């Protein structure tokens, strides 16, 4: 076991994040570059990709990240752990091999973790698992899911990643794993943390949780004195220095903008955690309220004393199903009477759609500049808005109908409220497919036998 701190870098927070700040992490020196590419929404995007082309279904910015980091991997300075596999880790591994070949390198060991994809076993799992795949948010029975499943993935834990590293992998590619597992896996491997070392595992989950959203712990999306964050256009990606007892220092490359202090760290600590005293991860239930945060100055925050309790016997899993097609338009109205004009335009549009015999299953109407985002939390006012954008969205059963609804807007360019519509067609990129997502629980004993780690050397 190393007696020094292991340095983890959070080099990606979502599919589409910028690889630019990765170089800063590599220059600062990190043992592991952890790339978190999958939000719930991302799996839906990847599902659409895979439906078009069986060789897709992974996050396609992976080669850009690998191109930036492979030189450091070859030098033995870092290893890469990523869930860029999405719903097709084999295809991601293939892309990684191709990227390495294009760079003309050899001697790399690429591991692929499989077993999260339960789609082929859906009926069997549904019949066998204790939850019967009821929706974990609403309690609704699986039979009430609004369409056929498009994907079905369990959130695996960190131990398969640790296993891949133990086999000598330089690059570990997974599908759906818990985000924090990308960071916990290397710590389990380096420090030999046991499966029942709950406090250590909880500490690792907390570190992963803090780093998994890249710049969001280092001054991004920060509601404190955000306007004082240095050089926000050079927002850094974060680094954790973790020791064997689980104590960690959250920091950032010195030569960068951004900020790491107790305020930025606590913003991320509670991000999307539900109950912070019982953060459910595949490997441990972590108590984030037990963590002690200390500002050490110079963009360094110490996190210690994290407590954990035994993991549950289920994995969270996510399914998606087709939920129709949406269209959207935005029309700007100027003073005077901007809001009244926007409301009238919306009503005229809805009536025209009805007269055209088009079926809309759901409307969403927002008035930007009035209360589009704040809804009922916005107090009524007598003040007249200087301009208002009517943003109208609709859901239809099929793509053709959703497109036809949008066309009913066009004649209103000359036939709506004065002074005519501005900006018609903006944001009208054509209908897009909606997906419902269905979070549920699956018994670990049904998943674990199918989890495999394969190693390929190029």
């Amino acid at each position, binding site marked *: 076991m190393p007696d020094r701190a292991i340095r983890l870098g959070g080099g990606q927070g979502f599919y589409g994040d910028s690889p630019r700040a990765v170089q800063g992490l590599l220059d600062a020196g990190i043992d592991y570059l952890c790339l978190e590419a999958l*939000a*719930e929404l991302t799996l*839906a995007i990847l599902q659409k990709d895979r439906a078009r082309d069986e060789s897709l279904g992974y996050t396609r910015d992976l080669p850009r990240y690998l191109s930036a980091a492979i030189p450091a991997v070859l030098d033995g300075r870092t290893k890469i752990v990523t869930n860029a596999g999405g719903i097709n880790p084999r295809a991601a591994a293939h892309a990684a091999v191709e990227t390495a070949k294009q760079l003309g390198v050899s001697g790399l060991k690429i591991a692929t973790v499989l077993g999260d994809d339960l789609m082929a076993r859906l009926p069997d799992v549904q019949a066998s698992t204790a939850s019967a795949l009821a929706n974990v948010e609403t309690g609704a029975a699986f039979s009430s899911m609004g369409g056929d499943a498009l994907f079905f993935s369990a959130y695996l834990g960190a131990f398969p990643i640790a296993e891949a590293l133990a086999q000598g992998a330089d690059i570990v590619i997974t599908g759906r794993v818990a985000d924090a597992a990308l960071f916990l896996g290397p710590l389990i491997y380096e420090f030999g943390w046991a499966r029942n070392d709950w406090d250590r595992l909880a500490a690792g989950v907390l570190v992963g949780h803090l780093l998994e959203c890249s710049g969001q712990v280092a001054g991004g999306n920060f509601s404190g004195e955000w306007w004082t964050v240095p050089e926000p256009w050079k927002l850094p990606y974060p680094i954790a220095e973790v020791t064997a007892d689980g104590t960690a220092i959250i920091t950032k490359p010195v030569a960068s903008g951004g900020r790491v202090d107790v305020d930025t760290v606590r913003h991320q600590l509670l*991000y999307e955690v539900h109950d912070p005293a019982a953060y459910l991860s595949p490997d441990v239930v972590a108590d984030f309220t*037990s963590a002690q945060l200390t500002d050490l100055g110079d963009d360094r925050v110490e996190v210690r004393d994290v407590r954990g309790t035994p993991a549950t016997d289920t994995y969270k899993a996510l399914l998606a199903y087709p939920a129709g097609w949406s269209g959207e338009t935005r029309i700007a109205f100027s003073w005077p009477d901007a809001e009244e004009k926007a409301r009238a335009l919306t009503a005229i549009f809805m009536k025209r759609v009805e007269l055209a015999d088009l079926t809309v299953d759901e409307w969403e109407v927002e008035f930007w500049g009035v209360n589009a985002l704040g809804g009922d939390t916005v107090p009524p006012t007598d003040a007249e808005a200087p301009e208002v954008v009517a943003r109208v969205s609709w859901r239809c059963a099929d793509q053709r109908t959703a497109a036809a609804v949008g066309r009913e807007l066009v004649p209103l360019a000359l036939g709506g409220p004065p002074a005519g519509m501005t900006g018609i067609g903006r944001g009208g990129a054509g209908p897009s497919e909606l*997906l419902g997502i269905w979070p549920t629980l699956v018994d670990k004993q049904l998943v674990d036998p199918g989890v495999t780690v394969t190693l390929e050397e190029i």
Partner: protein
Amino acid sequence: MRTQLRDFCGYRAGDKGDTSDVALFAYDDAGYELILREVTAERVKEHFGSLVRGEVVRYEAANVRALNFVLRGALGGGGPRSLRSDNLGKSLGGALVRMEIDVLDRSVTPARRPRPDVSWADTIIAARVG
């Protein structure tokens, strides 16, 4: 005295399915005691009105002087299904700190947040826009 949460709280919102998580951060002990007392789950549910269809549950994180609110049925069916422009509910943190509360005890003066100064941004923009 009535005051808005924005004057002494930080916030961040995130999403899981059709559930929004909104965290509220106080800046000192007095501020934490105040939100602990005033910002109940019931008040938050009432504040959001039709934006939140389901229940609201409040969790405490005293170690970071914060409350976390779990809002069920808050995202128009969930990110990939929602027709809302803010389909991930990122703006719901800001919507929460619009809430007004009573500061009953005048001896309690929670640390107040300054308003933003973005003169640096004005300088950058002015140098690039004629």
